[in-house]
């Protein structure tokens, strides 16, 4: 099955983003495809390469980047939501790209299911 994932929560303040990542890994392990992961609202913070959690804590930004490089998952950050929160091309972590909301709608049309985290 082809899945589009929507993440609307920041990586540290809540559990939703970490759960989304675990869900994606489980889906890939079972042979499902990820059409796209779209980061919206506070979810854009997942893409900030300047995040530097203290040693021993999970680093979700880095984990997303390694998901992109290991499985070629398309990680898209909303340009409007990012601009409002100071996230732009210059501080984007590897594997993420910035684009518009049309990318969310398009990927929902192309996928079999939309699964939202942090709504």
């Amino acid at each position: 099955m082809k899945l589009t994932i929507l993440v609307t929560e920041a990586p540290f303040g809540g559990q939703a983003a970490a759960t989304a990542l675990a869900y994606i890994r489980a889906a890939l392990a079972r042979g499902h495809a990820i059409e796209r992961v779209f980061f919206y609202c506070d979810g854009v913070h997942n893409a900030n390469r300047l995040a530097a959690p203290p040693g021993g804590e999970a680093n979700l930004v880095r984990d997303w980047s390694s998901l992109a490089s290991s499985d070629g998952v398309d990680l898209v950050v909303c340009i409007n939501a990012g601009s409002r929160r100071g996230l732009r091309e210059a501080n984007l972590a590897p594997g993420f790209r910035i684009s518009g909301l049309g990318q969310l709608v398009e990927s929902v049309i192309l996928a079999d299911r939309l699964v939202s985290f942090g709504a």
Partner: protein
Amino acid sequence: MAGPRKPKSLAFLCRRSPWGSGHAAEMLEAILIAGAFDQEVHLAFVDDGVFQLVRDQRPELLGRRPLEESFRELADLDVEHIWVERESLDERGLDAAELILGATAIDRSAMTDLLARMDAVFGA
């Protein structure tokens, strides 16, 4: 997934009050984009989300843009399915007559049926 693609039914489930967070405004932004894609777009207002539809709000006092402008843009995009849950209105002492034009009140079971038959539901 073979063959020509037929329009999908997309619902936006709006559950949050309009000004306590930026959520309502950002979801409306997504709704406007979805409206431009020639799909069957439905807006479903439940819980505190029903406050988004109350007429004559003055959010400029909070430095925010009125949602009503966006609702008017939706009409231009032929997004005509705006549903509001009657029980949510009742629980908050609101009357359908206080809402912006074009919102249709339906009861909870009809709302559930509506969401169940959608291809995708955006939680908002």
